[in-house]
């Protein structure tokens, strides 16, 4: 017989081995290739940005308003982590990867905690069976597609899950402790959970429900006290808004959050109008099949436990499944159905599935045992349940290899490409949310538009397209946008991204004559962009140098005269501005004319003139083309252009052109729309006009329209100070109370003898 001390040591070693194996497995599935998969998303980018802002200067924001949607604790944790690594002001991409390491590491702990809870809930299992069940729970959690999806991202979920599970663990562990111990400990954990993410509140009700299910009203009062004690700590969050003087903003945001949770307001998730939950489930089936199976098994476990008289561990499991599935059912049927909410439901589903599977095998084994037979039903049941478990694990691991072992970093790669190929001022129009690109590409203006024409009207010609964004209704982009861009533009690059089902970078051409593109209003005129990156252009203004904006508009604006090629300048009493189609001059009386540069161009650089496809300046000068003649005779075009300098001539490119002193009128062969052919660049290159330096230099484009409100105070320091004080109170007060209680016990009885 083995030495009992040796056996105890072996038991301890085996348990540590299971913990180590669980940590290694979860660490591998969560951290492997974390720099390149999954592709980043809006929440991850802006949350990490907010954490960096906190690390740099205590500002909890990524806009110019404080972050009130979620509590500050997870951001503070991420900020501390980034500060520790010296990445507080690192490029955002690096900070995101570092933050992912923190959250993935935290997820490892969450999975181990889940194993611990499973061990708590299997008190009759015995050592080997208990370790086996814990191992299965950990393996299922470590490979679960939903937990992997969100455990590998720098989001709030991993941090919220770990504190929620810790709270549950403590509640189970201290289930028999008196209020003086239970309330401060579980209350503190509950408070920290609520300060990480409020939606976990349903999990915090598990101990209350456990007591209610057992009709232990006194216990229910104690655990409710623990919850309320935690709620008290959460009040530091609204207190922060009071300290910032933004209470009404906080109330508005929280009111909207509650409305969203209740489903009264649907702005995100699969219950939005026009988004089909079933279609979304179908679309995601390939990725989340294993999670769906586990959720279904957890549901079966819940129904099974509802038909049983539950006590002890089974009552805890029932309470946990009830709170989790009640939240899940409400969310699916009525509330805001965000995919990441399943992170909070799956732990109960996994533990419930495993323990219900174990109970099913036990039930079959406890059935009738015909003499001489080896429990065929039980064995068959065990084989079936093992087969389901293996299938779920196999599907999960297959999905892991497919999604996380290969690169899935389209957004990061696209950002690198934009940085390397375009100037830092290059502007992008994107499908989906623009902020993730904007923060990854500091300096680059990024905006979301519903239509390609809308984007181009503001001078944006570089488009990032994701069909998934459009189909799922993320961002403003419509189907018309992607169709239009692909019909007109050039595909510059494609980027592998399983998350976005591929990303594409497109460029649409610049048309200097398009009146509905590249024009931004300015006081006294407009700014016209002159490149596809929206890096610069020239203003056309009414001002001291002359009313060029008025003259330009009167002559037909961009559609006729084209885009400006310089700003205006004044020399010898005359003001000039070069446009694509003419060099416009304004005399001291404001009379507009086109500088008669066409004959000079033909004379000084005949080869260049011909190469530009411009018509002859000799021969008959009659107005033989009716459309050109009509356009020329229209006021003020004839006064502007001067006399004809040559005949109307069909050119090899299919256009008909006629030269005048100040410009060349042209029309397409099949159109009566007449405009001034491009001669501005030739005139500049030939030195026929020399804008002064200020007029020749392009100016930066005006900022894109923004919906940012006025700046608000965003410092999170008041919250941190109050949190430290709160923590001191929450840990110190119970100690004082316990000591007082002890003193009370020791106090001699001073009552008078009766």
């Amino acid at each position, binding site marked *: 017989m083995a030495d009992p001390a040796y056996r105890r040591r072996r038991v301890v070693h085996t348990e540590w081995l299971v913990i180590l194996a669980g940590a290694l497995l979860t660490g591998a599935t969560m951290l492997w290739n974390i720099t390149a998969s999954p592709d980043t998303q809006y929440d991850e980018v802006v949350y990490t940005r907010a954490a960096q802002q906190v690390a740099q200067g205590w500002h909890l924001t990524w806009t110019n308003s404080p972050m009130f949607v979620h509590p500050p604790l997870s951001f503070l944790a991420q900020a501390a982590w980034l500060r520790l690594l010296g990445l507080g002001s690192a490029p955002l991409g690096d900070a995101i990867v570092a933050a992912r390491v923190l959250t993935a590491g935290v997820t490892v702990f969450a999975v181990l905690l889940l194993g611990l809870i499973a061990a708590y*809930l*299997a*008190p*009759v*299992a*015995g050592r080997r*069976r*208990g370790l086996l*069940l814990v191992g299965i729970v950990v393996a299922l959690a470590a490979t679960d597609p939903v937990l992997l999806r969100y455990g590998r991202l720098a989001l709030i979920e991993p941090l919220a899950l770990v504190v929620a599970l810790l709270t549950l663990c403590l509640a189970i562990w201290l289930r028999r402790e008196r209020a003086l111990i239970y309330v401060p400990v579980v209350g503190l954990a509950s408070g920290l959970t609520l300060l990480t993410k409020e939606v976990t509140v349903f999990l915090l009700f598990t101990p209350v429900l456990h007591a209610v299910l057992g009709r232990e009203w006194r216990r229910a009062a104690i655990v409710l006290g623990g919850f309320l004690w935690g709620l008290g700590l959460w009040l530091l969050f609204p207190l922060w808004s009071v300290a910032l003087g933004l209470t009404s903003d906080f109330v508005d945001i929280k009111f909207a959050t509650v409305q969203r949770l*209740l*489903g*009264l307001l*649907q702005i995100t998730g699969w219950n939005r*109008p026009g988004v089909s939950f079933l279609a979304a489930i179908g679309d995601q089936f390939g990725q989340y099949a294993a999670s769906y199976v586990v959720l279904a098994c957890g549901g079966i476990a819940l*129904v099974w*436990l*509802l*038909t*049983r*008289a*539950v*006590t*002890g*561990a*089974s009552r805890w*499991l029932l309470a946990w499944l009830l709170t989790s599935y009640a939240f899940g*059912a*409400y969310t699916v*049927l*009525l509330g805001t159905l965000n995919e990441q909410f399943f992170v909070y439901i799956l732990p109960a589903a996994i533990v419930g599935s495993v323990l219900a599977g*174990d*109970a099913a*095998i*036990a*039930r*079959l*084994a*406890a059935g009738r045992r015909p003499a001489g037979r*080896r*429990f065929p039903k*039980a*064995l068959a049941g*065990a084989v079936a349940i093992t087969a389901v478990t293996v299938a779920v694990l196999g599907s999960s691991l297959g999905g892991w290899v497919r999604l996380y072992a290969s690169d899935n970093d389209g957004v990061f790669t696209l950002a690198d490409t934009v940085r390397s190929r375009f100037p830092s001022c290059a502007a992008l129009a994107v499908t989906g949310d623009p902020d993730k690109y904007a923060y990854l590409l500091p300096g680059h203006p990024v905006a979301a538009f*519903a*239509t*390609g*024409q*809308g984007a*181009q*009207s*503001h001078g944006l010609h570089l488009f990032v397209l994701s069909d998934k964004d459009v189909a799922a209704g993320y961002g*403003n982009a*419509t189907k*018309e946008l992607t169709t239009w861009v692909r019909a007109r533009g050039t595909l510059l690059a494609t980027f592998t991204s399983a998350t976005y089902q591929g990303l594409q970078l497109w460029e649409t051409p610049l048309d200097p004559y398009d*009146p*509905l*593109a590249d*024009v*931004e*209003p300015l006081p006294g005129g407009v700014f016209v962009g002159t490149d596809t990156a929206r890096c610069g252009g020239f203003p056309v203004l009414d001002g001291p140098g002359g009313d060029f904006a008025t003259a330009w508009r009167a002559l037909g604006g961009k559609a006729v005269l084209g885009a400006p090629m310089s700003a205006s300048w004044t020399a010898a009493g005359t003001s000039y501005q070069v446009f694509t189609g003419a060099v416009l001059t304004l005399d001291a009386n404001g009379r507009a004319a086109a500088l008669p540069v066409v004959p000079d161009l033909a004379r000084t650089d005949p080869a260049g003139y011909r190469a530009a496809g411009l018509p002859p300046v000799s021969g008959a000068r009659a107005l033989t083309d009716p459309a050109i003649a009509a356009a020329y005779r229209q006021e003020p075009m004839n006064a502007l252009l001067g006399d004809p300098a040559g005949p109307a001539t069909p050119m090899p490119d299919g256009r008909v052109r006629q030269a005048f002193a100040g410009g060349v009128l042209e029309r397409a062969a099949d159109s009566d729309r007449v405009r001034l052919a491009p001669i501005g660049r030739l005139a500049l290159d030939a030195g026929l006009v020399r804008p002064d330096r200020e007029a020749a230099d392009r100016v930066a484009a005006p900022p894109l329209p923004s919906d940012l409100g006025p700046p608000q105070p965003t410092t999170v320091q008041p919250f941190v100070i109050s949190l430290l004080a709160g923590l001191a109170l929450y840990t110190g007060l119970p100690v004082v109370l316990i000591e007082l209680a002890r003193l009370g016990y020791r106090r001699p009885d001073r009552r008078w003898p009766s």
Partner: protein
Amino acid sequence: MRDAPLPDTPALGAVAPLGRRRVLARAGLLLGLLVLAMLVRATGVLHPDPGPDALPPLPAAAKVVPGLLRAGAPTETDLVLLRDTFAVRGVVVIGAASVEEQAVVPALGMRLLQLDVAEGAAPTAAQVQQLDAFVRSVRAEGPGVVFMHDASGTGPVVVAAAMEQLVAGRPLPEVLAGLSAAELDGLSAAQLQALRDAARAAPAAGSSVSNSTEATR
């Protein structure tokens, strides 16, 4: 090797079955809650249908006559919403349309009409006729609504809308009574005079939108 017997007690501990009545009661409660939730979802109690009289979420939004709405200037996203949720098929800009709007409205498959009316002025009779013809033309193409706006929703679009109501046969006092105090205060003397003139001329013009829109009431 000896067979290791499978455990016959759940790891959770013994879980005895409940009595039939309690099981039925719990199943009934669970089913009842699920059915209730599905009924709430199916009936749309949480998201009541705004109905045909719903107005777009834009500043100073108002219904002018059936098939014609007015408000302040929409953004590009608003234009998508107007098209997809309010069945807007035509947009009338009272004043200067932005370049973006000129580009976006046709891109979204809607028609655009610009009426050059200065701030503080009223549309001319010809412009009202143009507006009227546009509304009729859009609505003749199929079911849909025309959306009319100026920069703020409280400028000349109020006068243009009032004129449309006069053309539709409503008396001037009723039209003015339909305006808010702020809108009334915002009317210039020239605009009020234009409305009086339009009211006098209205019976002669009252055959256009009024006929087409009354039919849809």
